[in-house]
């Protein structure tokens, strides 16, 4: 049996199950049966995918002709011919019609078969051509599969997903029922896989070096997301141990869940609003089950990710409405599009950005595409007529952007009035405080916004100049950093001076060690992944506001991360004892025989 392998604890809990390994670039082809009346639409969808693939190749041909000349581009000529070959195109269409299966499955079968036959050719040169067939196969399949690179939707039974990394596109169409846990090589505590795992309430361990080399699909893997370790091919003893840890963890969760309907109020009566961050409509149920008072952040990117077309105003309205109706009388804060411009679809392919983090995304893209922006704003406005909704703009870096965005919102309101559609005239409009510049001028922005929400994930990265996904510098990403505390305080004070409420939707709001500091500084609202709510509520209910203020004052006087952490621990751990799952410190204690030795830790 292999021993425990260390990684970074990303989502608490324990799981044992079959591993499902996803290699970079693997495409999982879904197999779907069609109704007779869906066949022609599917054929047309196939034709459209071929068309897009042709356009892609054409663009590539042009580019390569420039850089490498005619010779280099010629191979793409062959790819184009493959895309027009009746043996491929007509055969696929016939296959769809005859077998009533989806284009992807039929196409994959045909192309896969040809590729395999060719790859066995005795002749070296010919065998190489199987790579061309593979290239074309993938290009078209990616166009056909709504999830882009892969679909985790059609797994037959629950698995532990193991990958080099997991992008938002891949997880956007996940079937939550089928995932027992996540294990990735890349990423840190706030990487997408981690956030995803926490919102699904499954364990996750990230930053597990070379795990994809140590695991095969089908092998058994045990995951401890609380202390950040995994075991490949655990033996009976280990499995029993994990099952018992699972039971202990479940008991802990049950205890915390008893708090569900109790208010988040300090011992001396100060109430704090606790709400939830969700990434897609299914998250509302989870949020409510964990006692969230509203949705503090609805990320709307799921509407755009991995979909072939931009979401219409109607589709957005219908999604938003369902969520608002479920959450009422509490409110839903909807954040406008917060992705890179390359996800918008209508935009012609932009050159690869050297630094997408500092690049063209979020509000910048929205302002550059007012029609698309309007669609989203109108959908949100329409929803506001039926229940409590708030709007929030991401990545605001200055007053100009805010005013421009508000201007487009006004235009949206005017167009709705012209169409005779009702909306909330006083729709509250807030901004994400996630860029240090915005914090530095928080007072100016607070005058023009209805509320502020601090996005600590990005704020910390920009402020401390750290890429949280970079394993070498991830240690610098710290929430309990004097500079971060000062910025948070600056924002809270500025907001309050203008009579506006200030919340936090970054992961720092879910850090139990930060809670007393944040409450003590006067934060009005904390929004986080649903399953982390009970613990934070417990912290709030265990202290007085006076103590929290003392804690905050003390923390602000510290010069180092260590100093702040020491203060936080002193005040908080007294309240909670061992319930504080200080993710990363390791709550589980393994029997000596199973602990990784120091040398092995170095090898890992």
């Amino acid at each position: 049996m292999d021993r425990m392998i260390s990684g970074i604890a990303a989502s608490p809990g324990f799981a044992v199950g079959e591993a499902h390994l996803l290699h970079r670039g693997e495409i999982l082809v879904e197999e779907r049966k069609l109704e007779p009346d869906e066949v022609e639409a599917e054929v047309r969808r196939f034709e459209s995918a071929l068309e897009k693939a042709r356009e892609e190749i054409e663009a590539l041909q042009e580019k390569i002709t420039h850089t490498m000349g005619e010779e280099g581009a010629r191979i793409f000529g062959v790819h184009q011919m493959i895309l027009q070959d009746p043996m491929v195109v007509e055969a696929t269409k016939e296959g769809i019609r005859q077998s009533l299966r989806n284009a992807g499955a039929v196409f994959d079968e045909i192309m896969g078969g040809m590729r395999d036959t060719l790859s066995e050719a005795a002749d070296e040169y010919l065998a190489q051509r199987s790579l061309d067939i593979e290239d074309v196969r993938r290009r078209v399949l990616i166009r056909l599969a709504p999830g882009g690179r892969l679909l985790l939707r059609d797994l037959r039974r629950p698995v532990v997903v193991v990958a080099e990394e997991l992008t938002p596109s891949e997880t956007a169409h996940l079937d939550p029922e089928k995932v027992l846990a996540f294990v990735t090589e890349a990423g840190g505590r706030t990487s997408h896989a981690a956030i995803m795992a926490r919102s699904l309430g499954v364990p996750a361990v990230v930053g597990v070096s070379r795990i994809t080399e140590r695991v095969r699909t089908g092998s058994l893997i045990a995951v401890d997301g609380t202390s950040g370790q995994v075991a490949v091919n655990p033996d009976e003893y280990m499995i029993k141990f994990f099952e018992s840890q699972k039971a202990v963890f479940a008991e802990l969760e049950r205890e915390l869940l008893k708090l569900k309907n109790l208010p988040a109020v300090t011992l001396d009566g100060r109430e704090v609003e606790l709400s939830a961050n969700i990434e897609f409509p299914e998250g509302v149920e989870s949020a409510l089950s964990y006692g969230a008072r509203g949705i503090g952040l609805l990320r709307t990117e799921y509407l755009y990710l991995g979909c072939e077309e931009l979401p219409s105003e109607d589709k957005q309205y219908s999604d938003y409405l369902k969520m608002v109706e479920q959450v009422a009388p509490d409110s839903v804060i909807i954040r406008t599009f917060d992705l890179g411009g390359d996800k918008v679809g209508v935009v012609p392919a932009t050159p690869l950005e050297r630094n997408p983090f500092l690049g063209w995304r979020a509000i910048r893209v929205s302002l550059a595409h007012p029609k698309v922006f309007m669609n989203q704003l109108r959908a949100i406005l329409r929803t506001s007529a039926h229940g409590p909704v708030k709007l929030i703009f991401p990545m605001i870096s200055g007053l100009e952007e805010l005013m421009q965005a508000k201007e487009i919102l006004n235009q949206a309101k005017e167009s709705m009035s012209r169409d005779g559609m009702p909306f909330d005239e006083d729709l509250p409009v807030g901004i994400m405080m996630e860029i240090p510049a915005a914090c530095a001028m928080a007072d100016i922005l607070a005058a023009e916004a209805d509320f502020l929400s601090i996005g600590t994930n990005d704020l910390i990265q920009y402020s401390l100049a750290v890429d949280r996904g970079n394993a070498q510098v991830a240690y610098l990403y710290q929430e309990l950093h004097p500079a971060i505390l000062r910025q948070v305080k600056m924002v809270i004070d500025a907001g309050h001076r203008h009579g506006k409420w200030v919340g936090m939707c970054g992961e720092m709001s879910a850090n139990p060690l930060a809670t007393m500091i944040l409450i003590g500084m006067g934060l009005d609202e904390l929004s986080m992944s649903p399953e982390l709510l009970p613990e934070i509520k417990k912290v709030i209910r265990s202290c007085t506001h006076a103590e929290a203020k003392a804690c905050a004052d003390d923390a602000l006087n510290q010069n180092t991360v260590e100093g702040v952490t020491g203060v936080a621990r002193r005040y908080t751990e007294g309240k909670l004892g061992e319930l504080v799952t200080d993710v990363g410190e390791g709550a589980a204690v393994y029997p000596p025989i199973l602990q990784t030795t120091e040398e092995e830790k170095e090898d890992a």
Partner: protein
Amino acid sequence: MIRRTVTIKNTLGLHARPAALFVQTAARFKCDVFVERDDIRVSGKSIMGIMMLAAEHGSRITIETEGKDDQECMDVLTALVTSDFEAD
């Protein structure tokens, strides 16, 4: 309908780029084009088909054309295959 058996002269056989040329040429004609090797028969207008044929240098294939311009097509394709066409 015309059938002719020829020997592949191209040094690389009927592989991707020459295959592409073959298929593009065949596509110019209205007639049906088939190519056989041993007991495999493929459409001469299908790049995949021709590649599948794996016709190396020195192998014998039978070209079959049928239709309005089948004679012309056969002549052009024969010339193509039996000359050393644009070896890499």
